[in-house]
């Protein structure tokens, strides 16, 4: 594995059993997260962006299963764990969760246990993974809370979740995620439930954390604005597949896949001329269980060509590091992805 890469996913396939049917929530996803960088996974509801991230630490419901692909995690150069080999809820994967790879969820309200003080909830993670005395733990947590911009941390340590506002709760969630100083932070829609002014606070906080601790971040969101602001690389997902993947500037300034460009032009930008009609993508967001002949996006695509119904388009590397999964780019000299 490349020494700059902290996490690499190769050919991941995650399935869900819904009744008697099998839903392919994630289909042949390959991506990698660079050390100290942020990868954004963007897409609409049901596109598989959360499932991809949850597959990394095998936080899947009982009906979900990783059935193919490898997930490799390298905390430092020369060290490597193959996460996909671990059994669900095995000791190995639990020692990774929280200590090496931690998560922040969308809803800070329901992610905290209302009957314990937040100090207790952060402590618990620390005691689980490290041998540390109670006093030391307390000191470290208070330092962390102060660093995360929670005023009066000594006092707040003994407060219960309901005494915090939404933005403060999300800071506590970040404290829980950061307390063991993980190498990789998976943030699943961390600001969707928050107001814009609070969202700006949290995003700038996450940037500071990355600077101070060198943490790599996977940021899952549906908001193109947040991606543009917070990410170094982007993966655009549609129906369980990555349709476009590359460095932020390349994807945003030169979107290749029709879906990416439509997404970018369908959101109103501040200062947009009121007379311009928004570009909309026709039809509905498909259900995960829908089955398509050929490219999944073809029923909604405006640039459909004769190949689109033939089969799934292979990954084309159009430029260095800029990949797209679309028949339009067949001739542009790309080779099949490994």
């Amino acid at each position: 594995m490349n020494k700059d890469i902290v996490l690499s996913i190769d050919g991941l396939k995650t399935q869900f059993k819904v009744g008697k049917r099998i839903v392919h929530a994630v289909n042949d996803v390959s991506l990698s997260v660079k050390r100290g960088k942020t990868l954004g996974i963007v897409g609409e509801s049901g596109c598989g962006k959360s499932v991809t991230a949850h597959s990394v630490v095998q936080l899947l419901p009982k009906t979900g299963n990783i059935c193919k692909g490898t997930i490799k995690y390298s905390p430092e150069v020369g060290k490597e764990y193959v996460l996909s080999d671990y059994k669900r809820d095995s000791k190995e994967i639990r020692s990774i969760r929280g200590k090496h790879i931690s998560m922040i969820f969308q809803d800070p309200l329901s992610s905290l246990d209302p009957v314990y003080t937040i100090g207790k909830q952060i402590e618990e993670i620390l005691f689980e993974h490290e041998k540390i005395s109670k006093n030391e733990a307390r000191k470290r947590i208070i330092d962390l809370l102060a660093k995360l911009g929670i005023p009066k941390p000594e006092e707040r340590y003994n407060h219960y979740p309901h005494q915090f506002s939404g933005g403060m709760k999300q800071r506590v969630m970040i404290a829980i995620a950061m307390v063991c100083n993980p190498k990789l932070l998976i943030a699943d829609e961390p600001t969707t439930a928050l107001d814009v002014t609070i969202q700006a606070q949290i995003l700038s906080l996450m940037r500071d954390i990355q600077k101070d601790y060198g943490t790599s971040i996977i940021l899952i969101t549906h908001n193109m604005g947040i991606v543009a602001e917070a990410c170094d690389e982007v993966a655009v997902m549609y129906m369980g597949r990555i349709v476009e993947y590359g460095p932020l500037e390349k994807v945003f300034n030169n979107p290749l896949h029709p879906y990416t460009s439509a997404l970018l032009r369908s959101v109103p930008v501040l200062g947009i001329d009121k007379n311009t009609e928004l570009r909309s993508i026709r039809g509905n967001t498909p259900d995960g269980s829908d089955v398509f002949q050929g490219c999944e996006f073809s029923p909604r695509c405006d640039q459909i060509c004769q190949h689109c119904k033939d089969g799934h388009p292979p990954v084309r590397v159009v430029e260095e590091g800029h990949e797209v999964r679309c028949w339009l780019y067949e001739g542009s000299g790309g080779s099949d992805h490994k």
Partner: protein
Amino acid sequence: MAVITNKNNTLLELKNVKKHFPITSGFFRKVTGYVRAVDGVTLDVKKGETLGIVGESGCGKTTLGKTILRLCSLTGGEIRLKAVDSGEMKGLQDLDKRESFEARRRIQMVFQNPYASLNPMKNILSAFDEPMKIHSLGNKQERKNKIAEMLETVNLQPDYMYRFPHEFSGGQQQRISIAKALAMNPEVIVCDEPVSALDVSIQSQIMNLMRKLQKGYNLTYIFIAHDLSVVQYMSDRIAVMYLGKIVEVAEAVEFHNNCLHPYTMALLSAVPMPVVGAKSERIILKGDVPSPVNPPKGCKFHPRCYKCIDICKEKEPALKPSDTNPDHLVACHLR
């Protein structure tokens, strides 16, 4: 009567509207305080325009919408609607029974969660038909034709009227909600976060549709949302709410180019832009929105304001026209 002719174009007028919810505690439900959800809002809505109301959660924008729909009573102030025949502005409270009932038809609504705004046990036809029937909009066949027409207007097949709400996707349900409001021949539609529950690709469909319908049916929208870029795209004028008060009202272009209130500036700068390298100077506000139970003294924004001066802590600024533009109202000592 000179005032009335002056405001010929005004369809709806809010005068110092207040809505306080009592907080009760104990066995005897003693009132221990009030949530000042809407605390003195004065606004007027012109015919055919889209008035955007934007603010963070808890600022009272939804409650304000509900007071216009008369879903909750007013604690103080008055909401006036232009009468159809005389063109007079009449308080919604003072209307006689028939006019009051008629006003319910004239002001329609579209809510955030499209699934919850349709009765899950009723098919589309009967959901549409009942309000049309009690407002006597045609006989049975006419109503049915109208429903079919409305469904077609929002790009749905007419025979969908026999289906139940759960058989539709979120975007389709929101189209149905819009069609349902439209079937009543309304003048004003209060839209409370109509697109925030939808996927990005569906949001633009709904926004385009709403703009098309506005032109076609000469509708007036009150567009309530938290997403500034959406509000700015949809609205002709924008009102910013903070803790139950309007802090700034301006036309959309003026609002974007020349906003005056520090809170508006912070809001605008906090919106993430889907453009690489757009990160300009960002104003990051300290702290959270204070509780509307005991709002801060003086200007309600002063504890978070980065331009706060002494007078802000003492005296609450009034909403006044700016020096350069009489249509641009702002409530700030510093303007």
